[in-house]
């Protein structure tokens, strides 16, 4: 009977799909969903004394965080850092990504590998690298003073400047990868067509190449933004304890103050912030891809 054989075939396929999905879903469940639920539950407990918590279902930690002026400052600071690093990293990565997406050179594979090679080292190592380069007697300062451009060394570490420089570099491989993946609609034929219709290089870029590359730019931007806002190591090391972002604040609350409900509440709020940006991203993406 054809119908029954088809449905049993569909059943087999469903079973196969379930079997293939199970390991991944299990891993995600154990390593992501369970801790997340635990985190959310923790945020509802109440801190009664130093490092002492009382099981409860209360929003007191949230009230604490949201009424704390310093927390708002940190949040604002984090957002601002995220936007700045995103803009800079995407701007610097864009030409590289566009070139890699379109070149037909035989060296393309090698250049791709070079562009994403920094991902092979941990961001701890790369942050220390930047610490050395940007320190008061590092290569950057000594080069500038030897050239007579500066008299006093520039303060490039232990402040936001250093954090931004290091984060931009660390985020570039992600931005490049995400953008290349999103440049599918940019095509040589379209640019040739625009050229034959009278568009010079600049107008061709403004009217054709750039609008068509926007989905890639958005994806790259979301990637960099999320990673930057949740970055902990680089702001911590490069900021020398003087740069406060939500991630460092969570760490301090959890390990120094030992106020776990408050740390959890902060983490949940950060998660909500990501949610907002994800929705925003999807709206924008539909707008640039839609027509």
């Amino acid at each position, binding site marked *: 009977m054809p119908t029954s054989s088809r449905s049993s075939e569909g059943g087999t396929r469903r079973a196969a799909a379930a079997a293939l999905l199970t390991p991944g879903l299990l891993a995600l469940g154990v390593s992501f969903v369970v801790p997340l639920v635990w985190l959310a539950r923790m945020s509802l407990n109440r801190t009664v004394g130093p490092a002492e918590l009382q099981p409860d279902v209360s929003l007191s930690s949230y009230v604490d965080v949201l009424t704390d002026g310093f927390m708002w400052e940190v949040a604002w600071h984090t957002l601002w850092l995220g936007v700045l690093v995103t803009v800079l990293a995407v701007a610097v990565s864009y030409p590289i990504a566009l070139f890699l997406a379109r070149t037909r050179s035989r060296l393309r594979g090698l250049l791709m590998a070079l562009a994403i090679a920094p991902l092979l080292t941990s961001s701890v190592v790369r942050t220390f690298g930047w610490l050395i380069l940007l320190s008061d007697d590092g290569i950057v300062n000594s080069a500038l003073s030897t050239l007579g451009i500066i008299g006093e060394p520039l303060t490039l570490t232990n402040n936001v400047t250093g954090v931004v420089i290091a984060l931009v570099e660390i985020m570039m491989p992600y931005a490049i990868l995400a953008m290349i993946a999103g440049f599918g*609609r940019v*095509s040589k*034929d379209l640019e*040739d067509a625009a*050229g*034959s*219709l*009278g568009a010079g290089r600049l107008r061709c870029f403004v009217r054709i190449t750039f609008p068509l590359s926007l989905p890639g730019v958005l994806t790259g931007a979301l990637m960099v933004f999320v990673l930057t806002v949740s970055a902990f190591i680089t702001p911590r090391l490069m900021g020398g304890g003087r740069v406060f972002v939500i991630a460092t604040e969570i760490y301090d609350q959890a390990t120094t103050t030992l106020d776990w409900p408050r740390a959890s509440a902060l983490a949940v709020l950060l998660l909500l912030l990501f949610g907002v940006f994800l929705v925003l991203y999807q709206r924008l993406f539909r707008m640039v891809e839609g*027509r």
Partner: protein
Amino acid sequence: MEDAYLALSKLTKTYPNQPRSAVHDVDIDVARGEFISLLGPSGCGKTTTLRMIAGLIAPTSGHIRVGGTDITNRPVHKRDMGLVFQSYALFPHMSVGENVDFGLQMRRVAKSERRRRVADALDMVHLAHLANRRVSQLSGGQAQRIALARALVVEPTVLLLDEPLSNLDAKLREELRVEIRRIQQETGITTVFVTHDQDEALAMSDRLVVMSEGRVEQVGEPWAVYETPENRFVADFIGRTNMFDGRVAGQSDGVLRLEVDGLGTLSVRAARTGGATATVMVRPHRVRIDPAERTANELKGRVVQSSYLGDVESVVIDVNGTRVTAERTHSGRPLTAGATVALGWGDADAYVIPQ
């Protein structure tokens, strides 16, 4: 040609690390308003030639002139040429109307005139009702019509068509072929059409340029290229054909007699040939099977294979070890393999290919 509008002279493109030029010493003259096709197998240099005319590829040497002006070094956006691609290349982030409007915007045409010209261009391809559509909502045939309207709305000097029909299905291809030719004749625009499809080239062109391995093999009107190919390549590439090499056995009254292994002596009407050998060609539809009257060349053979195509039947016949392909317009049951048949053709049905 004295009144050449588009003139290519000694046009050559060589790529580093490639022994053979992609295009070699190509001379083509196109008259104003003429529809010319570049035809050849893939890799013959036809697309490279077109892209050099468009300004998308810089020639290694040689010149391109339009209306007497040398434009060899002019950048693509200042060439004023309309370009239509196999991939349509419509801008996906613009509506149909905006696509057509793009070239006018680039030329800073006043808004009211732009609106009128976009409407006229869409009317020309009978798609005025699609002006506000998204490009992604168009069918292949509609997309290519819009691409044509977009290329023509700016009134370019030359229209360049790069395999514009190759992505369409057979029926649509034929329809659009007629439409492109109609629009070309209405607008009187000088057109260069690149294709690997000889039916398209034969049906649409004023003249054909047959290319192979970067060189021009023959230039001529479609019927002349088909009936009187200048060399073996053209004879073989355009249409299907039987070719026989033979020794010249004599010549009298404009008829050449040729000794061909297996076939005996063949008679063919030909002007005087100097050489001791010659190649004769007979198109399959000129070979008659079981002819009712006597013919200058009469042979007997055995059917090897018969392909029944509805309107014609293509029959491969073995004549003493030499294969001859014949076509007959069909009348009844096709021949079966193994059957013995008589075949023949007149001395005017064959043609001696110049060596």
